[in-house]
């Protein structure tokens, strides 16, 4: 198993390449989901405030 992580001495190169790529991809998936949820939440709160008045 440790042989797998060592990648024949290239471990730091291989894993940093895959790790940084994963970070960029995850951020790009997360951002529009987060903003979608926030926007709907904000509109719902506004509506509730208007109804309360």
């Amino acid at each position, binding site marked *: 198993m440790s042989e797998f992580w060592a990648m024949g001495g290239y471990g730091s190169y291989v894993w940093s390449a895959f790790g940084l*790529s994963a970070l960029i991809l995850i951020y790009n998936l997360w951002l529009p989901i987060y903003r979608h949820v926030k926007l709907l939440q904000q509109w719902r709160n506004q509506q509730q405030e208007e109804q309360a008045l």
Partner: protein
Amino acid sequence: MNPILKWCYQLAVPHILYPRIQAWLPWVALVTFSLLALGLYLGLAVAPADYQQGEAFRIIYVHVPAAWLSMAVYVAMALMALSVLVWRIQVAELALVASAPIGAAFTLIALITGAIWGKPMWGAWWVWDARLTSELILLFIYIGIFVLYDAIEDKRQAGKAVSLMTLVGLVNIPIIHYSVTWWNTLHQPPSLSKFDTPSIHIDMLIPLLIMLLAFKLLYLLMLMLRMRLSLIERQPQAAWVKALIKPATTGDKP
């Protein structure tokens, strides 16, 4: 009308497109992540090491799909730009603007993984050769497109401006693609070509093709997520958007 054609035409209608994206999202996500898991397993654990590059060659499984998508996304955007300018399709404009940051992300991944791969193989993180420089210019074009769209207040004008900019920037794509044959560069020529049998072993090729497909689906998934957001952001006053926020306040519908 032909039902398939009708289905395609309906993609341009925001209040039909939005629920369709919602319905398709989990399935696209499921297939994408399954393929990614399979491709990573085969590429990192099963494929044999390269006889020259050893285990370092495995960076190919993220570098090549990302680089390929960085160009494919741009070509897709050029088609969207044409639909905006010729047929005035508003949804195409949203798709164009949503694609720019995704294309930038793939370009950034291609550049970063290329640098990390270049260090042990070429002895340098970066060289100013034709392939690397034209790919860096692609990153600046992508960034320019979404910055320009944000900077112009009138969104109809902004849509036209970024469509034009996208079409002008298209000249860079063949330059990137042929840079390795037109100029002397450190970058190796493509291992996969339509006209030749692949110069890569089948056990190395299959994971690469799976990762390529997975990255295409990742683009689709990210595009759907960004479109879902921009569709409601664009028309907050539309009746179908108002209907989306109603159920939580009245509580009579799920």
